[in-house]
């Protein structure tokens, strides 16, 4: 695997849209060709090389390409967008849409990632070592197709609207989350090791929410069924099992209504 290191040298005055920073785009290109790729600062089109020092050539394919992003990229959006293979490592914190629409490969953000990380993610792995913003693994604005595959791990906390319209895959959050979790979801699994606030699983059609900490306000559409022992990350624990959202439409399988499941650790 070849490594391309890009290091911020000239901070943009506005936010920088760097959707070309992805192993799929870099693949087969030399450092000079990569520096020549375009970015947008506001409505002005510029070159990646005008903002970043680029070192190293990319591999022949996306899978052979590893991108390391250094320096302060808190004002850079769309890093790793639509990546299908390879690796992206952001050494600091980054702005919105990190790993959005990614379908494979691995992306690691060592700091925090702002809102809309992993929007409509289809596959691969996203690790955020700091905190995640709002709408993690959610659908794009207006869309009804959220994250459908892959894995997200947030080592810190996450904001509101995690997994909105989620269809599949897994989101694990080691810390706490803000309001609205897996709203409208029709599949997938959200694991919250910390505490949750309110509106957990609103309009949940199908899918699974597992909460280890507290829930401030439970949705009225959820109904307690039984206690269940679950194994999460290799550790067994006992959970109160709820089904819902009973106010929402649900599919039937073999004459049985299929509800979403919410597990809260006892």
């Amino acid at each position, binding site marked *: 695997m070849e490594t391309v290191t890009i290091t911020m040298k000239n901070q943009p005055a506005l936010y920088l849209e760097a959707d070309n920073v992805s192993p799929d785009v870099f693949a087969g290109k030399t450092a000079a060709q990569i520096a020549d790729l375009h970015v947008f600062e506001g409505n002005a089109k510029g070159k990646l090389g005008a903002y970043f020092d680029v070192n190293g050539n990319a591999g022949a394919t996306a899978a052979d390409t590893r991108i390391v992003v250094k320096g302060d990229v808190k004002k850079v959006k769309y890093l790793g967008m639509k990546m299908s293979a390879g690796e992206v490592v952001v050494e600091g914190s980054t702005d919105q849409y990190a790993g959005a629409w990614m379908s494979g490969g691995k992306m690691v953000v060592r700091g925090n990632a702002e809102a809309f990380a992993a929007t409509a993610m289809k596959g691969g792995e996203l690790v955020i070592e700091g905190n995640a913003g709002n709408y993690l693994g959610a659908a794009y604005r*207006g869309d009804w197709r959220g994250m459908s595959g892959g894995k997200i791990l947030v080592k810190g906390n996450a904001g509101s609207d995690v997994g909105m319209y989620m269809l599949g895959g897994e989101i694990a959050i080691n810390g706490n989350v803000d309001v609205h979790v897996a709203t409208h979801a029709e599949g997938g699994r959200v694991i919250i090791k910390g505490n949750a606030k309110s509106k957990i699983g609103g309009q949940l059609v199908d899918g699974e929410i597992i909460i280890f900490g507290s829930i401030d306000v439970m949705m009225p559409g959820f109904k307690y069924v039984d206690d269940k022992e679950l194994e999460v990350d290799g550790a067994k624990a006992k959970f109160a099992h709820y089904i819902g959202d009973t106010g929402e439409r649900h599919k039937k399988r073999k004459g049985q209504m299929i509800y979403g499941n919410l597990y809260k650790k006892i």
Partner: protein
Amino acid sequence: MSEYLIKNGHVFDPVQGIKGDKKDIAIKDGKIVDKVSSDAKVIDAKGRTVMAGAVEIHAHIAGPKVNMGRIYRPEDKLFSCTPTKGMERMGGGYSIPTTFKTGYEYAKMGYTTAMEAAMPPLFSRHVHEEIRDTPIIDEGAFPVFGNNWFVMEYLKNNEIENTAAYVAWLLRATKGYAVKLVNPGGTEAWAWGLNCLSVNDPVPYFDITPAEIIKGLIEANEFLGLPHSIHIHPNNLGNPGNYTTTLDTLKLAEGYKAKNKFGREQVMHLTHAQFHSYGGETWANFESKAKEITDYVNRNKNITIDTGNVTLDETTTMTADGPFEHHLTELNHLKWANIDVELETGSGVVPYIYSPNISVCAIQWAIGLELALMTKDSMRCFITTDHPNAGPFTRYPRVIKWLMSAKAREAQINAFKHKDKVLSASSIGSLDREITLYELAQMTRAGPAKSLGLTHICGGLKPGMDADVVVYDFNPEKPVASPDLIEKAFSRAAHVFKNGVEVVQNGEIVSNGNKRTLWVDAKVKENPQVMRDINDKFLKFYSMTQANYEALGHHFIPNPLAIEVDATQV
């Protein structure tokens, strides 16, 4: 104005019966002429196809319903935005493009005239502001009459002359072009939570049937002698087994003859026939009844139709058929918007994905093509996608490919997941007809222009007509190496002239032209009763005053072209 001479192209013009002969087309002062001076700019069209500008007879491209779609579907703009480029302003949207993108995309495909298919009269000002902001193409809009309180009250007592006077007044107030009916009576019934699924279902409160509304509006339309006939989206759209409702609707036109000075022969235009040609009782035994519909259309010359081809895309459905959109959101669970327009109409909007992996969608695809291939007279069957309902209008080149190439159809059929079901539920597999370029010119130019009563202006290349001329990079003398080349050629015209101004060159916009708004100015005898009724309704029911209702003046209609009819002597 400049002169042009388009030399040595293969000309296809049904208006003059020209079938691919090598001919020169001369343009002077915005019109087609017999000859031009030696100063004329010469366009070499050798080995290329030359046609008149295409005429869109039915698309939802302007107004509150379209804008509702734009507003509530930001995801439709995702990855589909085009930046400012040369003459072009920025645009965006796939199934519901911005006004600017709408104008550019039509022009690039060689379309120079388009009709907005459903204008809610109360919001005609909004419709005209969007038409104004859609560059290049001439546009008209059809106000909807099929659920209008005035119309239902007059027709309940069979007052044809009063209906006609009201139609004339509304066309003038809204700067409308034709009489549109959408689910007649059904949208009004929807305000009571009901619908009219047959032509004989009574409309609640008004105690009138869709059949009476349809027949009454045919009579009023012919009383006035309007350029276009009534333009109908019948009851029971989109339901299995609805072809009987469609036949019942078509039969209502029997016995009526077109009365107008424009050369129009039909008294009823059936729109997006694909959505109305369904057999079966449920989605499980859903099947095509395109044969039954086209058999009827082939026998009855007073009908024209457009297809409403399904293009197998993700799109946004929108119609004044409010109850249908509710039905659709119950089926696909996608977001639903519903609008009621006081006294006049309503509408709904729901996104829809026509997936080639779903048998119903694939059969719908087959039905749209069958209608075009089974209609014998191409002057009476026009290509549409009911944009954006069955697919975006930008897919016309692909529809043309499927119609012109049996091989392309076969490739698509083989790509369907439920191929056998498509073949057993329709006869698409046994149709080997391939539409010729002449027939294509009939279906997209001369035919719709005649149906709209615009033969004297557009749809042909006869000297005296507006110089709307298109040159396609398509050599009719050479065998087509791959059907995809048909799609490519009709996607981006080599040259497009609108009113004698070159607006497209090699598929790029080179001028924003001087677009016009087409409307029908119908003069009728003074009718104090209708004027009093209008005044009364504004005082009693409308939430705006009559003074704020009319679409008037330079802001709304900067460049009008009024088509005049005089019914004062009738």
